[in-house]
């Protein structure tokens, strides 16, 4: 045996035995399996991260555009619509239990703690500034800006129309009007649309319609009513029904704007009615400059 093996080995000095080959193949396969598994994970995570980023940037850009126009809303009681915010709630949200309390989409995005899970010691959020607090009237009260207020909401499909100052680039134009809503754009649903019109002579130009964001699931506005003893957010606003003229200011002092964009992998029309929705939301608050600089606003400002 021994004497027979020696010459064979020396005949094929670099050759592999079957066992060596099998071991090598096994080792390579384990390596490759691990590499492929890791790679799939990375691709999945990278795809998700891309989708989330894109959805967030779309929502943010839309919120900022709307914010710029809202900031420039004009107090002009003769106009129709002067400032009209219509609240259109829906019955469902992202179908995810965002606050992990066992209930799904149980709140409305209205600035109130609808499900009653706010606890002062835990959820009240107010920076202490010297001897004062931010949002001073709401220390010890559940309000927008606290934890557990509007944290697991249904979607809204609100509509907002308002009068603006004229476009300085269009000579002779006296006024502009704009509106925001979710609608259909070139056959595509769930598009956040802006409609813009300018006055020309005694009439208005044909509306220009522009899409601000696609795959929009929710558009929500809240309006800061400074005309009441306890100023707070309201869900709709019709300037035509406000006192004019008088101590009451026709427009809200502040507007809360929130846009939720779908971020899932499937296209939106292929998502089943009970599937969870991946979403990204951007929201902001802007003050209407003509209101907070109005002398009448001085008399209704919050006193800490």
């Amino acid at each position, binding site marked *: 045996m021994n004497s027979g093996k020696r010459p064979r080995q020396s005949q094929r000095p670099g050759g592999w035995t079957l066992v060596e080959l099998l071991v090598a193949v096994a080792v390579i396969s384990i390596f490759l399996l691990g*590499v492929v598994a890791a790679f799939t994970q990375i691709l999945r995570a990278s795809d998700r991260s891309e989708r989330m980023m894109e959805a967030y940037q779309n929502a943010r850009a839309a919120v900022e555009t709307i914010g710029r126009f809202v900031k420039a809303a004009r107090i002009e009681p003769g106009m129709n619509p002067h400032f009209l915010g219509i609240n259109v709630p829906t019955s469902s949200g992202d179908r995810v239990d965002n606050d992990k309390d066992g209930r799904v989409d149980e709140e409305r995005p209205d600035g109130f703690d609808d499900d009653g899970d706010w606890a002062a010691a835990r959820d009240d959020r107010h920076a202490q500034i010297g001897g004062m607090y931010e949002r001073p009237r709401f220390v010890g009260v559940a309000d927008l800006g606290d934890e557990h207020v509007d944290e697991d909401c249904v979607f809204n499909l609100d509509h907002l129309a308002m009068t603006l100052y004229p476009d300085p680039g269009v000579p002779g134009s006296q006024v502009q009007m704009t509106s925001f809503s979710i609608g259909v754009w070139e056959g595509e649903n769930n598009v956040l649309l802006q409609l813009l019109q300018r006055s020309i002579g005694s009439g208005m130009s044909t509306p220009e319609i522009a899409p601000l964001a696609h795959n929009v699931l929710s558009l929500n506005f809240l309006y800061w009513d400074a005309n009441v003893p306890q100023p707070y957010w309201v869900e709709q606003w019709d300037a035509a029904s406000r006192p004019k003229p008088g101590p009451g200011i026709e427009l809200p002092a502040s507007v809360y704007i929130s846009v939720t964009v779908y971020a899932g992998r499937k296209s939106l029309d292929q998502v089943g009615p009970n599937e969870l929705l991946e979403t990204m939301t951007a929201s902001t608050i802007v003050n209407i400059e003509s209101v907070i600089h109005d002398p009448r606003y001085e008399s209704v400002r919050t006193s*800490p």
Partner: protein
Amino acid sequence: MSGTSSPAPKSTAYSFLEVLVSLVILLGGILAILAYFPNALRANDRAVVLSEAALLAQRKAEEIRRDGDRGRLLIRQIQTLTIPTSPIVFPENSTLAYRFCGVSLFHPTDDRGDPRDRHGVARIIVQYSQGYRPDGRILYELRFDE
């Protein structure tokens, strides 16, 4: 026949050990490439976090301006702060927290001429929350009501 006399072919074929070593090197290379990807993911997340920080800061500034009383006491108080208020976690995003201050935390010394470090200007500072990143790194600073 001639195999016994010539050692040359031995050096041209790979030994089992050599193959194993090369596999280890290959694996190391692949791992290094894979390790690069999380950085790219983090860059995406950071882009989102930075834009969110900017939006949340604007929102806080607007709230302060809206709630300012007749004597503008709230804004004046912020302007006089040389130590920022303690961080409050945003309810919208528990990884971020906000503070108010009258001096910049990015450029603490006022060298005049540079508006970024001017003292006595109300600022909102957005940083990582302690619960998310104990170092509480500052992400964004917004001056308002100048």
